[in-house]
Structure formats: structure tokens, C-alpha cells
């Protein structure tokens, strides 16, 4: 009986893993991920560049930690599966069809994203606004290089 239950549960688990992450889920989750990233880059831009008088060290550290965590979240492997160049999450995806032919460049940018967000975490801890600003610029350029490479122009 116990064994049967375990068997059923593991079957259910396997089935849910197989059935989860259809294309539209992947697209929706990655769109959400970038929305959260944009929320945090927007916050850093606001507090570090546009209105330094509103700078809150803890908030910037939290934003940098969030960005770094998302960069480390394995999103390339889990959210960019085959067929995800077409479909609708929150809105139609803007992933270019030739995304899958550009894996070397994509992986290089992904590595850079991890490196720059990690570095941002370090400078956020120091509270050196000028250093945060300069590191934030490098991160922005990294974001842009990927937008230019794999995102369809609207």
C-alpha cells in the first residue's frame, strides 16, 4: 500500500514536471523576470543617477542582490526552451527566431550579466555612489547588448 502510494505520487510528480513549463509559461515567466529586473534597474537609476538625494543604501543593496539573484537563476536553460521564439506570455514574445543560432553570443552575454550584477552587489555594499553609478552603466550596456542581439524591434 505504502509502496503503491509512493509510486502514484512519483508518477504524479514526473507527470507534473513533464507537463509543466509549456512554451507560454516559459515566455510569461521570463517576461516577469525582466519586469522585476526593470523595476530594480529603474530604482537604481532613480536613486543613483537622477535623484541622488533620495539614495537609500539598503534599498540599493537589495536591488543589486535581486538583480544578481535573477542573473544567477539559470533562466537561459529553463525559460528559453525550443519553440519559445513564438507565443504569448503576458504579451507576445519579442524573441528573435534566430535566437537558437546565436547561442555562443547569448552565453557570453549571460556570463557578463552574472559578472556585472555580482560586481554591482560588491559596490552597493560600499555605498560609494560614484562607483555604483559607473558599475550600473556597465550593467546597462550588457542589458542593451542582449536587447540588440535577440529582441525583435517593435
Amino acid at each position, binding site marked *: 500500500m505504502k509502496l503503491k502510494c509512493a509510486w502514484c505520487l512519483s508518477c504524479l510528480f514526473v507527470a507534473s514536471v513533464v507537463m509543466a513549463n509549456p512554451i507560454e509559461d516559459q515566455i510569461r515567466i521570463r517576461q516577469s523576470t525582466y519586469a522585476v529586473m*526593470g523595476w530594480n*534597474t529603474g530604482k*537604481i537609476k532613480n536613486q543613483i543617477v537622477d535623484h541622488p538625494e533620495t539614495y537609500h543604501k539598503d534599498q540599493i543593496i537589495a536591488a543589486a542582490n535581486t538583480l544578481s539573484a535573477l542573473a544567477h537563476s539559470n533562466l537561459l536553460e529553463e525559460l528559453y526552451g525550443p519553440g519559445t521564439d513564438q507565443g504569448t506570455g503576458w504579451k507576445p514574445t519579442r524573441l528573435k527566431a534566430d535566437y537558437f543560432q546565436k547561442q555562443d553570443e547569448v552565453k557570453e552575454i549571460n556570463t557578463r550579466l552574472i559578472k556585472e550584477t555580482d560586481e554591482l552587489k560588491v559596490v552597493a555594499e560600499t555605498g560609494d555612489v560614484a562607483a555604483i*553609478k559607473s558599475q*550600473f*552603466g556597465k*550593467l546597462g*550596456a550588457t542589458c*542593451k547588448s542582449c*536587447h540588440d542581439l535577440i529582441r525583435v524591434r517593435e
Partner: protein
Amino acid sequence: MKTIQQKVWDWPLRLFHWLLVLAVVGAYITGELGGSLTDWHSRLGGLTLGLLVFRVLWGFLGTYYARFVHFFPTPGRLITYFKGDWHGVGHNPVGALSIFALLLVLAALIVTGVFANDDIAFEGPLFHLIDKSLSDRISGWHEWLVDGLLGLVGLHITAVFYYLLIKKNNLIRPMLTGNTFLRPYQFVGSNGSLSIPRFIFVVLIASSVVWIVWSGLVTDYLASLSR
């Protein structure tokens, strides 16, 4: 060949031209590179807006050859030009077409740019007046317009070098010195004299427009209305 010197481009117009070159080249480079330079992209956009407003007003208040009425490419002028009967100085009718196209594309770049965003850290000065989804679309148009601008700038430079090397007519020097040399068959009237008070007036209007758009004044005012 004895030639007569003729003033065509007044100094505010020449200053406008070369500042516009700086602003557009700078905006292009900073826009392509992104990152921290995005702030400069925005500032250079502001400078470009100011220069465009200046040029439009100078097209009515400037000296003779700066005025739109004297080079607007009407069908009649274009026909005259294609028949080979145009012997004026300043912008010829086809050149004028390309000048107006350049000014229009630049104006469209400014209008789209002030509403654009880059999904990273840039929001145009009027971004908050519209929806994010509309801003995303406008940002796409902004990028397409850059392609159009590159084409027109390429055409502009090619034409200047075609005149220089093939037609042996240096158009760069007049844009530096203000003077052109008349061919014997050309006779044109004086360029008139430059009015400094008008120049100051035009610069004041142009900088006010930039300040109103870039300072957040418009957004704040509209926000106060809806409160």
C-alpha cells in the same frame, strides 16, 4: 576664370549646421553604446531639439538664403532644375528636398525620443504622459527612424563629395566661410544683413522649448491638472 564672392550662409546658420553635426553624431554613438552614455544621448537629443527649433524660426527670420521661401522645393522650381535652367545659389531644389527630409526625420526622432524608453534605465522626458506599451512601440519607431536618418546623412555626404570631386563645386567651404563663388552667368541679390536682436530672440525661444520639455515642466503641469 574671374569669379565674384557671394555671401550665402550667415554665421548663425553655419554654427547651427556644425553643432547639428556634433549633436547627431554624438547622439548616434551614445545611443549605440548605451550604458552610462545614455544620459548623454538624452542631453544631445535636447540639443538637437533646440537646434531644430532654431532652424525652423531661422527659416523665417534669418538672412535671404536661410529662408524657406527662397529654397522651398516647389514643383515649378523642381521642373526648372531638371530642365537645367536653375542657376541660383544656396540650396538647389533637389538639395532642398533632401534638407527638408533630414529636418523632418530629425524632428520625428525627437518626437519619438521624448516618449521612448529602453527597458533598462532610460525614460524620455515625456515618457510618463503615455502608456508603457505605447512607449515600447514608439521606441521601436525611434530605432527605425535611425536607419532612415543614416540613409539621408549618407546621401547628403555623398552628394557633397559628388559636387566636390565630379562637378568641381566645393560646397563644404561655403558652410565654413559663408561665402560661395558665383559663376559668370550667375547674378543674385545680396544676402541681406543679419539682425542680432532676431538671433537672440530665436535662441531664447529655442532654449525655452528645450527647457520646457526636458525639465519635466510639461509632465508636472499635466499631473497637477489631473489631481
